[in-house]
């Protein structure tokens, strides 16, 4: 209940601030000001440099001559994204990014602008980044917040993560909004996809499988032992809950129900920062990386890790979204809404196809795809050509 109260207080505060502003505006209606659209300046600049004709029909974000987003294609692609989410997980976020970059033609369009009209390039690139972040991040947030109910927060870990998360989510949008060209973005996106592909591949190798297999066998053996136990043993009530045993800048040790754990507080701060920075920069959502990270670093039980990471995800997402919006990044809201509906429908299909396509086969397909997309985007970022054009040129 106190968590809901805390949330209600937080958002009441936000609403109160808005109301205060409105009250002020009510006194002097002239205070309601016209939005000085940054994009308009960019359009004007591109028009003056001859890269764009203001008389062309308006397309994406109202930019004259920009591609018209076909919401039907966006919807179909989002179904594919939803299907991937419900079958192979994390790759769905990448597929959402591929949609914004390649399927709707936004990447190629942004890439056309350079020199004096580079502002259009960065504006469209920022819009791609923030759209991914909104679409994947918000849905992940709802999912993670549900987990907040189940567990409790491990305050020192939560604070350490939140510090890193706020830093990453604030610095990245503030420092990069309006400054990252499509070439820079696509190269880094490609590196991330390639890294994910390598990780997915590692998981399928005998070495990657070994630790998984070991944990699985140990868990099964333990389950068998537990089946033979018919009643709960009394536990030492002096050792309940999380108890801090030592706290210094280098090491935090705590006993969780009498079992000792320790971690270096710098790791969650750094981890929170890196994960939030990647999530905010690429717009891939960071929640899915946090829970395994906390479990690995602090050894926290899954439900505590989920609850604790929810705090970091929440503050990170709020900071990133506010920072992007404050930086004047524009979003095609109907496109996001259409994609969310598509993702939802795709998730209805996933369970129904998984009985025909084994998970292993799917994982292999997506590994190949990750390698192809990753390398293609890196080459596109460096040379400005697609992989097949690059190979043909090299040949």
């Amino acid at each position: 209940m106190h968590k809901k109260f805390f949330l209600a207080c937080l958002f009441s505060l936000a609403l109160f601030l808005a109301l205060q502003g409105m009250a002020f505006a009510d006194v002097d209606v002239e205070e309601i000001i016209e939005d000085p659209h940054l994009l308009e300046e960019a359009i004007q600049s591109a028009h003056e440099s001859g890269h764009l004709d203001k008389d062309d029909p308006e397309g994406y974000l109202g930019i004259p001559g920009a591609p018209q987003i076909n919401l039907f294609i966006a919807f179909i692609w989002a179904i594919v994204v939803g299907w991937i989410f419900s079958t192979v997980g994390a790759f769905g976020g990448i597929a959402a990014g591929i949609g914004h970059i390649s399927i709707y033609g936004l990447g190629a369009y942004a890439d056309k602008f350079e020199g004096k009209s580079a502002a259009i390039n960065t504006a469209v690139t920022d819009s791609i980044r923030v759209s991914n972040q909104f679409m994947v991040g918000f849905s992940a947030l709802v999912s993670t917040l549900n987990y907040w109910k189940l567990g409790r927060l491990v305050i020192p870990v939560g604070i350490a993560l939140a510090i890193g998360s706020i830093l990453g989510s604030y610095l990245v949008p503030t420092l990069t909004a309006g400054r990252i060209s499509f070439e820079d973005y696509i190269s880094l996106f490609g590196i991330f996809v390639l890294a994910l592909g390598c990780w997915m591949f590692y998981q399928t190798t005998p070495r990657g499988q070994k630790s998984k297999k070991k944990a699985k066998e140990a868990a099964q053996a333990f389950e068998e032992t537990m089946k033979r136990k018919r009643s709960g043993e009394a536990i030492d009530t002096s050792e309940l809950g999380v108890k801090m045993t030592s706290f210094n800048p280098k090491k935090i040790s705590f006993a969780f129900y009498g079992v000792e754990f320790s971690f270096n507080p710098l790791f969650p701060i750094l981890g929170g920062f890196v994960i939030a920075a990647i999530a905010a920069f690429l717009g891939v959502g960071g929640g899915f990386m946090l829970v395994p990270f906390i479990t690995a670093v602090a050894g926290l039980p899954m439900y505590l890790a989920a609850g604790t990471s929810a705090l970091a995800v929440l503050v990170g997402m709020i900071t990133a979204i506010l920072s992007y919006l404050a930086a004047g990044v524009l979003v095609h809201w109907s496109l996001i809404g259409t994609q969310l509906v598509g993702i939802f429908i795709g998730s209805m299909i996933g369970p129904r196809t998984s009985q025909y396509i084994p998970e292993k086969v799917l994982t292999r397909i997506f590994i190949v795809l990750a390698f192809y997309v990753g390398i293609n985007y890196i080459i596109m970022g460096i040379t400005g050509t697609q992989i097949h054009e690059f190979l043909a040129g090299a040949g």
Partner: protein
Amino acid sequence: MNWWDHLIIMLDLVLIAPYRWFENPVNGFFFGTFVLCLWCVFAGEITFRIGSWINRNHIRRFRSNMVRMHNLSVKALLLKDKENYRACNKEANEAFGKYFFNMLTMGAAVLWPVPFALGWMNTRFGHIEFALLFPLPVLGQSVGFAAVLIPMYILCRIFWAQIKKKMPDTPAEPGLKPGETGQEEMISMHEVEKEGRIPERFWDSSKS
């Protein structure tokens, strides 16, 4: 004019009406946005219920696997068996990942009306900004319409969750009768602390 344009105009008329119910435009703006948030909560809730009903077996399977491993890890922890705790926790984490991504799509089911609402508000209120009493870090000196809709929507969802709990005869999840929980129970640490042991029912369910 085709049926799609008709639909858009009809929707626009329905959504803008509450904004005109008050003479004072500021009151009208807040009331209209509040009604819009209620529409978003309503449409999201319906979609979520339909989706979780269609996918109920699938989601339950993932959840039950996760809960089983979590409960085992808690048992190992309370027995001070660190090695088995780590193994079961790893498995629980793996299962959580699968459940997480499936629930992520349910998040999309809940949230889809919000971007449409923002898109619609942009057509009506996109050109205005509200001055804040004092400049805020990150936000600056003024905020747009989204700064009203998003917090108001979140508050509406929190209150809706409270109302739902008090509503009689509401099943815990779609496809169940009222009173049925339908979900495998996770061991609650609060209960363990209260009883000083893992409650009996968690051992009963493991009887072979």
